């Protein structure tokens, strides 16, 4: 698929299937991550992202397929549990487990903490850290060991929006390394856009998309991927399904389409409107003053993704968007 750079892949999975108990949680997944590349693995809850990551790290056995790892793999698990010691002691401990000589540990730990904006936390006991600080230390620990392949499982999970945004900003530069292949599981699309060179989408245990984030967003390969990427509107147009995101739907008094507002949800600086048309249902964001429920509006479509009616698994799938 598109987007793979030409650099040598340090991590490669070929048709990997991973069970959890009797259930195959990951099925037939092939992927590669090259040196210097940051790849985001995105998917809904229960898609098998963490299971795939554990298997790629070698922490879970695979039922089928092959995984090649060229170099040492470090994985930062989703839970950022730290030992009841100071931050620096936690860092030094991890470097010791990794096999870094004692004389180098403190300097490497401090450098990694500073890279992620946590240089001032070294003397703090882990028990006194906030959720965001704890996640920073957890990330710093994974960066400090300088692995060839770095696997991160939802490094921004459980943070409030402000703390998440700050950590995300600092991570963009801290995670970038020409020597390392990085695969990061994310739950939120915004995290993937901010971090990744390439985006993998896992739904129902299967890899359904692989490409550059912007390309995938602009032209999703399937209706399922489109829906996952926020294409929440649908319109039957010339025998095809036209799927849209809110920016694609523009209220325009001179527009060719007519719709009725059936729902209006207040946002910070406007309203999210649900619009009912003769052959579909669209969503848009309207600035204040916005039309109210029951009003008739005119609109035009500026973008979207088209799919043949047969391409969507069935019409109900699209109609349920």
């Amino acid at each position, binding site marked *: 698929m598109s987007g793979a750079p030409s650099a040598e892949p340090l991590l490669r999975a070929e048709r990997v299937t991973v069970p959890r108990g009797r259930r195959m949680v990951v099925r037939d997944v092939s992927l590669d991550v090259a040196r210097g590349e940051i790849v985001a693995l995105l998917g809904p809850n229960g898609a098998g992202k963490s299971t795939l990551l554990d298997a790629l790290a070698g922490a879970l056995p695979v039922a089928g397929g092959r995984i090649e790892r060229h170099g040492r793999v*470090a994985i930062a*698990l*989703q839970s950022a*549990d730290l030992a*009841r010691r100071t931050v620096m002691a936690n860092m030094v401990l991890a470097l010791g*487990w990794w096999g870094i000589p004692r004389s180098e540990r403190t300097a490497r730990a401090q450098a990694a903490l500073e890279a992620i904006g946590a240089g001032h936390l070294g003397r703090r*006991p882990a*028990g006194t850290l906030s959720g965001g600080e704890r996640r920073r230390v957890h990330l710093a620990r994974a960066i400090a060991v300088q692995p060839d392949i770095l696997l991160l499982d939802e490094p921004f999970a459980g943070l409030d929006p402000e703390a998440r945004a700050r950590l995300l900003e600092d991570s963009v530069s801290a995670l970038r390394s020409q020597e390392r292949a990085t695969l990061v599981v994310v739950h939120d699309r915004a995290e993937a856009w901010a971090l990744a060179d390439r985006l993998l989408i896992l739904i129902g245990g299967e890899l359904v998309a692989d490409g550059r984030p912007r390309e995938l967003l602009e032209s999703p390969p399937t209706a399922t991927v489109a829906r996952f990427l926020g294409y929440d509107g649908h319109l039957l147009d010339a025998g095809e399904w036209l799927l849209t995101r809110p920016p694609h739907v523009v209220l325009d008094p001179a527009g060719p389409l007519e719709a009725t507002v059936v729902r209006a949800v207040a946002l910070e600086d406007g309203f999210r409107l649900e619009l009912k048309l003769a052959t579909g249902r669209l969503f848009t964001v309207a600035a204040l003053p916005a039309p109210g429920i029951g009003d008739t509006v005119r609109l035009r479509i500026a973008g979207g993704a088209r799919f043949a009616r047969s391409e969507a698994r069935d019409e109900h799938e699209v109609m349920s968007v």
Partner: protein
Amino acid sequence: MHLIWEELRAAAPLIWHGDPYLVSVIWFTVQVALIATACAAVIGLPIGLAIALGRFRGRRALQIVANASLGLPPVLVGLVLFLAFSPQGPFGSLQLNVTRRSVFIAQTILALPYTVALSAAAVQALPSRLLDQARLFGAGRRQLSALALREARIGVMAALIAALGTTLSEVGAIVIVGGNVYGYDQTLASSALYEANAARYSAAIAVGIILAALILLLMGGVTLLQQRTGGIRLRFRTAT
């Protein structure tokens, strides 16, 4: 009530004037308690860690046995040891019956379930991903064990406190295997039993009071150590 008061009044001078017999019994009791607890820790903590961290067959069965052993009847332990150390028993050649060594062995066996079962439970109560993460960073078995013991130190100290309490106060096994010989292998608990059996209730109460004071002293010391190492202060700091 009057009788108890009279016996307590009669016991007081015995405590204040502390004869050499009483001093030797106190010293032997302290020796037994500390050495048996230390032996139970050295043997039991690795087994507890293996139960909590290991991935071997029979791990659950071992934990069931350890937990069940918390209710091990001391009299049964004393009888089994007595038979094992008797001349016809498998360890008869060691000639351990009615010796001080047998008292150390009996109390170590009674303390062992506490160090095994409670330390295993303490380590199992740790956030599992903390240890998983250490494994994934390449921590070996010894490094994992050190991390687990340190992180579970409040629970591990509780296991040692329970073991210490057993070695101080259990009497059922040592009177059988040690013989409860006056002035030789008596602990404060077995001495109190000895005096009570001889209907010297004042002496029995005096010994009992000293035992209770010793338990308070040793347990208090270990509890303070638990609070210092275990992060009671840290919890307060976290909460503020």
